[in-house]
């Protein structure tokens, strides 16, 4: 049964876990996307500034996130995914890269197991504009292959997200932006693993930015599609706003009808997870509950549209 979820970024860690998860539950959500990337920000990593949050031992991290676990249980919420810190690789910063790849990511996988998260979204390395796509492929496969034993140990899976890069200030496709590339990564690694440990996280906003068609992308991915990042933008910036926020006339903006049609046809049965923390931040903070209610209402609508199109 399709459920509706929302990311914790914008809500946590600014608040006490109990208050935050109550807010999410009160708005009607049953699933959450845990943004562990909030604890080691991408802006800092790109600048080579790495904090010591993940120096903590696994036990210390579990202790830190125990209130999350308890609050989720208390309010009937379950995590559907977790977003690991990123970038995992920054060109020219080998020391940080080693720390991210050999310490932070493994600890995130252990944490995911503790928090009973089925899928962890890890951004693959972005290397194609510095080197080429083949080198990017080789390095990513080599790294993610090393995670397979950990994934089996912790019983969690990894999802790759369709990403973009910036060339000359302009947004262009990045790793896994092409569905055939995404499938190649997933199938290769699953073959190596001998089981399904890898899947895809479809980011609707990123699709818009690189002009990809949602229906075609989803149909090509099929059952490899495990988690979603739902949001919309103006096709120029990665704005992470509410669906249906753009356009002046019917049919303008992202084609949510085709999105729902494709999900129905592949019998998508997971979580409609909204990655809309900038939406929360755009409105006055006093409106957080109202905005969460709105996001949930959109989720309910999309769910009904998918259910109507499901052949089951």
């Amino acid at each position, binding site marked *: 049964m399709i459920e509706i979820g929302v990311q914790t970024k914008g809500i946590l860690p600014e*608040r*006490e876990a109990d208050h935050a998860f109550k807010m999410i539950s009160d708005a009607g959500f049953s699933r959450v996307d845990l943004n562990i990337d909030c604890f080691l920000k991408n802006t800092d990593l790109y600048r080579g500034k790495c904090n010591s949050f993940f120096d903590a031992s696994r036990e210390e991290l579990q202790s830190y996130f125990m209130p999350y676990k308890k609050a989720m249980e208390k309010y009937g919420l379950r995590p559907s995914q977790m977003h690991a810190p990123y970038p995992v690789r920054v060109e020219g910063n080998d020391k940080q890269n080693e720390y991210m790849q050999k310490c932070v990511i493994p600890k995130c996988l252990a944490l995911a197991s503790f928090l009973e998260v089925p899928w962890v979204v890890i951004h693959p390395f972005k290397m194609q504009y510095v080197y080429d796509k083949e080198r990017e492929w080789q390095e990513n496969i080599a790294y993610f292959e090393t995670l397979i034993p950990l994934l089996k140990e912790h019983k969690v899976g990894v999802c790759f997200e369709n990403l973009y890069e910036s060339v000359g200030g302009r947004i262009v496709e990045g790793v896994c932006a092409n569905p055939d590339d995404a499938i190649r990564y997933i199938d290769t690694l699953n073959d190596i693993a001998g089981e399904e440990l890898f899947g895809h996280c479809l980011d609707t906003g990123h699709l818009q930015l690189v002009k990809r068609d949602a229906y075609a992308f989803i149909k090509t991915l099929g059952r490899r599609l495990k988690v979603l990042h739902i949001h919309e933008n103006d096709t120029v910036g990665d*704005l992470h706003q509410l669906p*249906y926020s*753009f356009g002046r*006339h019917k049919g303008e*903006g992202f084609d949510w009808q085709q999105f729902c049609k494709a999900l129905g046809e592949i019998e998508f049965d997971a979580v409609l997870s909204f990655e809309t923390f900038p939406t929360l931040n755009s409105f006055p903070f006093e*409106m957080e509950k109202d905005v969460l209610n709105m996001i949930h209402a959109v989720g309910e609508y999309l769910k009904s549209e998918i259910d109507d199109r499901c052949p089951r």
Partner: protein
Amino acid sequence: MFTSVLQYDGHANLAGLEQAGVKIIELYHEFPEEFLSAQICLTMEERALAVMQNKNMAVAGWTVQLMPSHLPAILEWKEDWNGAYLVLDFTNWKDASCEKLEKLLIQNAEEIVKRNLHIFVENSCRKVGEKFGFGAFSEMKNLVTVCENVARSCALSRENLGICFHVGHANLLAQNVGAEVTVAGDWLKLVHVQDNNGFRDEEQIPFTFTTGRGMLSTDWYGLIGHLIMMNYDGMLSFAIPGAFATAPQKLHGALAKLLLAMTAIWNSEYEFEKQLQQPGKQIILFGAGRMMRRYQQMWGEKYPPSFVVDNDSKIWDTVVDGIPVRCPQAILAVPKNERNVIVCNMHYKEIGGQLEKMGVKYHCFRDEYYF
């Protein structure tokens, strides 16, 4: 205080809006040049009837995009407009000028007064292809001059003549929306609220458009702050046909709820001074930085704080700008019924959480509305 109105152009889900608690509607019409009087009357009648079927809704007024020649027919549609308003949007009037607008209003003044109608002139853009530029009615100072000249020359006055400020049009022309409403002054009778990115006229809900993440494309805080400071006590009409066109009908009720909540938040900011007017209570500020200084600038003389608390232990037991600084626990030494805690720090969520854990109620000073 602000009163929220929702504009209806025939596409929104009226039942959904009613269920969401929308009580006041504004009807919108676009009349192309070739429209005849009979068509105008029929169109207006049909749309008005659609709203009348919802017993919990009332029509406060109309906005029409028209040509000057349409005005007499529009006025004649109703014998008595019962004090409703009519906003004139002359976007398509190609050779418009302020002098021509004044002449038009003066020519129709008797009918306007006889039919018990309020007329508002609206700021508009000139559109050339896909680009927007300044036209005759783009600046508030020109519309104010029109109103003053008309009021001097006929039966129309501040009672039945005014200006509607269209936020979306102003944003497309990169205008300072807060400064523009201040120029309108007492002539400002209505605000059309909608958002765009400054390039495309998308007519969406406020706070939708950002550059990057979270940096608003429209100065909403500046606009509302200026309206509050000029004591604008009128209607905010959410003119969001883009939102109702792109969102499915089933979501229109949810959208309407969001807009009603938005008006409530703006009204609570309008009433902020009432939070400070609590006799017998000590005003205690949380945050000894820049926002405290702004509080002092705005309210310090009328509502001086007893002390300020801050999480920076280095400044405890010192004095900042004449105000003693203490640790946050000092709040608890003040009896509950004597505390009036005001957060003066942008980290509202974190400090709010801290105060809630302490069992302390609080309000927030939002300097972004005023600075």
